[in-house]
């Protein structure tokens, strides 16, 4: 899907004037939840809510980086040239995708993140500020 680039992207000085920060939203899901409970209907309704949420952020110009999907495999490299299949699991959680969002500070970023549909699927959001 193509979203019209927000003004803040095409005119970086706007971002500066409004003193906005960029925040990374990392979306994690549980492998257990992914494998077990999602019925096709639930998935369809979740996807539409998810897309609406992303579209909402794009329309208000808050979305800095497009949502991108990453495969569910991956590789993990460690020192000594050790390669194991991914994704990297942190207590049964793995990173599914991320977006970048403009917000004034952590408070505002948090408020934006709290409306994210991923919580319906017992996912989590990690918010990190760009420096």
């Amino acid at each position, binding site marked *: 899907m193509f979203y019209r680039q927000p003004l803040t992207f095409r005119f970086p000085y706007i971002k500066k004037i409004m003193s906005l920060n*960029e925040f*990374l939203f*990392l979306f*994690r899901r549980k492998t257990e939840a992914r494998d077990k409970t999602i019925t096709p209907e639930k998935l369809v309704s979740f996807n539409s809510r998810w897309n609406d949420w992303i579209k909402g952020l794009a329309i208000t110009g808050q979305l800095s*980086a497009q949502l*991108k*999907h*990453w*495969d569910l*495999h*991956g*590789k*993990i*490299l*460690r*020192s*000594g*040239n050790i*390669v194991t299949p*991914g*994704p*990297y699991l*942190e*207590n049964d*959680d793995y*990173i599914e995708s991320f977006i970048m969002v403009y917000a004034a500070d*952590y408070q505002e*970023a*948090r408020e934006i*993140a*709290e409306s*994210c549909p991923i*919580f*319906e699927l*017992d*996912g*989590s*959001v*990690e*918010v*990190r*500020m*760009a*420096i």
Partner: protein
Amino acid sequence: MKEFLFLFRRDYKTPEVQPTPELLKQHLEHWQIWFEGLAAKGLLARPIQRWDGQGKVLERGKSPVNGPYAEIKESIGGMIIINAPDYEAAEKIALDCPIFELNGTVEIRMGL
């Protein structure tokens, strides 16, 4: 040409394994050099961005938790997106990543 996400993780918590200020300075210089190398070879799909070490983690039914997500020892220090034809090529690029100096890991995921 596909996009590959590199997620860099290492242990930021255990006091004994944290680098000394001198070592950290050197370590960061290695990152700088490595990133410049990637940019010079035209491998970066997006410009490099750095992230603070704080962050918040939000989960349903829990109040927001401070700090990067750290369910286990390691947490994410940074990430980049590069262009490569396949996993093999992406792995090769990740081979000389400075994170290994501090026993960190690189997670590689392919963009769909």
